[in-house]
């Protein structure tokens, strides 16, 4: 059978438009992923210089069970966007520790230049409150200057 016009005149049945019907599905899939993974910012980060450590590890714990305590260079403490006095830390953390079923993790976010006396006083307060799980928040150290054995 001879093709009319050697087949050039035959109209293609495939649409010449980019199929847009699946676009919505893709977008919704991504949307659901982000909706599920999103954790809205509970507090604003304080401007601190993070200390660096090679042994930095990820803390696998629910967000609700982590309390961030910021220690600034001048010794000021901040919890949930509010400054607090060193002496009141134990009274603040104690009830939270019991409420969390003794799972609360305190993330000490201290400035790398903060004098150690403040970090020590904070630890003493935490011991008094009973909260014993502490994480010194650090950045992963990526320098190659340190020799690894």
């Amino acid at each position, binding site marked *: 059978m001879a093709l009319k016009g050697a087949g050039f005149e035959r109209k293609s049945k495939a649409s010449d438009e980019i199929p*847009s*019907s699946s*676009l*919505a599905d893709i*977008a*919704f899939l*991504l*949307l659901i992923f*982000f*909706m599920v*993974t*999103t*954790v*809205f*910012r509970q507090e604003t980060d304080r401007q601190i210089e993070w*200390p*660096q*450590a*090679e*042994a*930095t*590890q*990820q*803390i696998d*714990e629910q*967000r609700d069970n*982590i309390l961030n305590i910021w*220690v600034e260079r001048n010794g000021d403490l901040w919890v949930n966007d509010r400054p607090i006095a060193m002496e009141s830390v134990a009274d603040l953390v104690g009830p939270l520790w019991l409420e969390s079923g003794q799972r609360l993790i305190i*993330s*000490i976010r*201290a*400035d*790398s*230049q*903060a*004098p*150690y*006396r403040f*970090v*020590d006083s904070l*630890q003493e307060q*935490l*011991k*008094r409150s*009973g*909260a*014993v*799980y*502490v*994480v*010194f*928040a*650090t950045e*992963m*150290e990526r320098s190659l200057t*340190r*020799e690894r*054995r």
Partner: protein
Amino acid sequence: MAILNKKSKVSDEIPSASMADIAFLLLVFFLVTTVFPRDRGLRVVLPEEAEEVEVSQRNILHIHIMTNGTVELRRGESENISTIAPGALQQIWRTEVAANPNLIAAVKTHPDAAHRFMIAVLDALQMAGAERISLQLLEEG
């Protein structure tokens, strides 16, 4: 019945062309507002308040962190103090703990020493696999 027979030109499908736009708009919103948690650091477990354990001096490695970040090392009962850089501690700990598996690192930091010096020492100890670490304040004098 001319009117009934007239076919409507309006499509009977729900218009899906703008669906992608709506979804992308929401997607961009979530992309912009998402903050991935940065919960990472060095884990330690503090001793409970009343918990005081007597440890033989033989099993203690005293690590004193000075204001300039240098580390003074003293083994248990011995009076010899060696000054080292924090980076060297990792190897020293490995050697020491191989000789005495019950060794405890007693880290005492000068009150005026920067937090990062303590972190450097803690980092070196954790990298060397140390588990028994005590953190204290170095008393002056």
